[in-house]
């Protein structure tokens, strides 16, 4: 892979499969556990996460490279990233609520849920640690969102089947979900040799 596009594209696919933010890094578990009961709602949340990850990674990259680095303030990145994410999500929610009733019902309602989702902040921090350029960061954010979407969809599908299964009482709810998440993570490790990012 020698062209300049190759690296960002690798990052994009790696962030979906081999370096899935949820299954490889176990980030964003809270909403993953609580909203994965039904496929319909997890689709809404998945789209919202994808959108927010892609856009905030872009925004945070710009803030980091054009404000924090020149001022030598990169140690403030945690607090700044969080503020940017929170404000951005809030504004997007207000806009969606105003503009489209359908979009608000399917996606907007989930936005406040993910403002403080650690996977979103995680994506912004990874891109800084790994020193991605603008395009890579955007594709990394977008891919991570899709990966998270994929994981929650799969889990919702499994949990709908689980409704008819007999689960030991102590394992009902979050317990069995975490075990299944672990198995899914193992399955995703099967992709590990195909692509890799560091």
């Amino acid at each position, binding site marked *: 892979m020698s062209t300049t596009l190759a690296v960002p594209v690798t990052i994009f696919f790696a962030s979906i499969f081999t370096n899935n933010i949820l299954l490889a890094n176990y980030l964003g578990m809270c909403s993953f556990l609580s909203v994965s009961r039904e496929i*319909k*709602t997890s689709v*809404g949340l998945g789209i919202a996460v994808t959108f927010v990850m892609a856009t905030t990674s872009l925004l945070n990259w710009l*803030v980091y490279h054009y*404000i*924090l680095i020149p*001022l*030598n*303030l990169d140690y*403030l990145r945690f*607090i*700044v990233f969080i*503020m*940017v994410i929170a*404000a951005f999500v*809030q*504004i997007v929610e*207000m*806009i969606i*609520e*105003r503009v489209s*009733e*359908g979009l*608000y*019902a*399917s996606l907007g*309602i*989930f936005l406040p849920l993910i403002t403080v989702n650690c996977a979103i902040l995680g994506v912004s921090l990874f891109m800084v640690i790994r020193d991605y350029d603008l395009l890579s960061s955007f594709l990394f954010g977008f891919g991570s969102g899709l990966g998270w979407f994929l994981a929650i969809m799969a889990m919702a599908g499994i949990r709908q089947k689980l409704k008819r299964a007999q689960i030991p009482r102590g394992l009902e709810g979050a317990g069995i979900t975490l075990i299944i998440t672990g198995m899914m993570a193992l399955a995703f490790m099967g992709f590990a040799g195909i692509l890799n990012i560091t």
Partner: protein
Amino acid sequence: MIQQLLLSVGAISAIASLLAILMVITDATIGNYGIVKLTINNNKEYEVKGGRPLLATLMDEGIFIPSACGGRGSCGLCKVKVLEGAGQYLPTELPWISEDEKKQDIRLSCQVKVKQDFRIEIPEELFNVKEFRGRVESIVDLTHDIKEIIITLIEPSEIEIRAGQFIQFKVPEYELTNEPVYRAYSVASSPSDKTRVELEIRLVPGGIGTTYVHKYLSEGGEVIFNGPHGDFFLRDTDREIVCIAGGSGMAPIKSILLDMNCKGVNRRTRYFFGARSKRDLFLEDTMAELEMSLPDFTFIPTLSEPKDGDNWEGETGLVTNILDKHLGKGSNVEAYLCGSPGLIDACVAILTKHRVPEELIYYDKF
């Protein structure tokens, strides 16, 4: 060092302020829905600030929709019929709304936002409903399983009720429930006593509300309830009154009788009260006093299974038999019943047999 400190503080402040300004601008432009018109039951119109949940908007107008979770969308109690303005169902409402309710446009008022002109329908009585905070003044055993609870109001300090109505008592989380639940109890005190509410509560084994009241509530404790609710109250007519109650069904009837005493109502009134044995009978003194002070009132208690030691000289038998025996011509009678569904159904049959008009039989089943 100082320079670095100022720089970082400045940078954070600048970024935060910029974001805050952006949000304020968005809120004032895109998030500003202006003043919208809220029409309730087709006859009351309110001009309200748009953009907030229906539940909160109504609360601002002093209309209290019962809700246990306080607007988090986790109790599903604050249902309201929305005729116009609500838009499509939100995923956060759907777990609480059945297919039937969907057809009737029932919405969860804490989730639906008032963004345009709204038309809703709520029970008329909700206009007077408020949430009250009170302190338990006393708890007294009336019988082996019925307690009298007197609650002094703290905030608001006065309640306007009609004799016979009930309140919704908030049972907090405890052993038997992991979320707050509401239970309805009739008010037993006279409406003229605006600063206090008296309840008569019988212990139902395993009952969430009654177990809480009997085992966990103590004098001096704080309670929350909302009300008043219900259309069980004395109608202002000239007809004879027949009251029938069993057990803690005494409460609303007592309230009605006290209210009549206050207002000097002189209609012929008979009160049939059914109990098993003497240990289930209570408030005989109050009833005796009312017989003295009301111009034409008779209290007719009956025991279905008097014990040997009871020395009972009054009526014996089921309340239905005694009612049948005493009622006579029913065409000029208006009846007020409070008790178990079994008691009420049986008594309604007797009353209609004696030609009491069915639409003038009012009851409170529990």
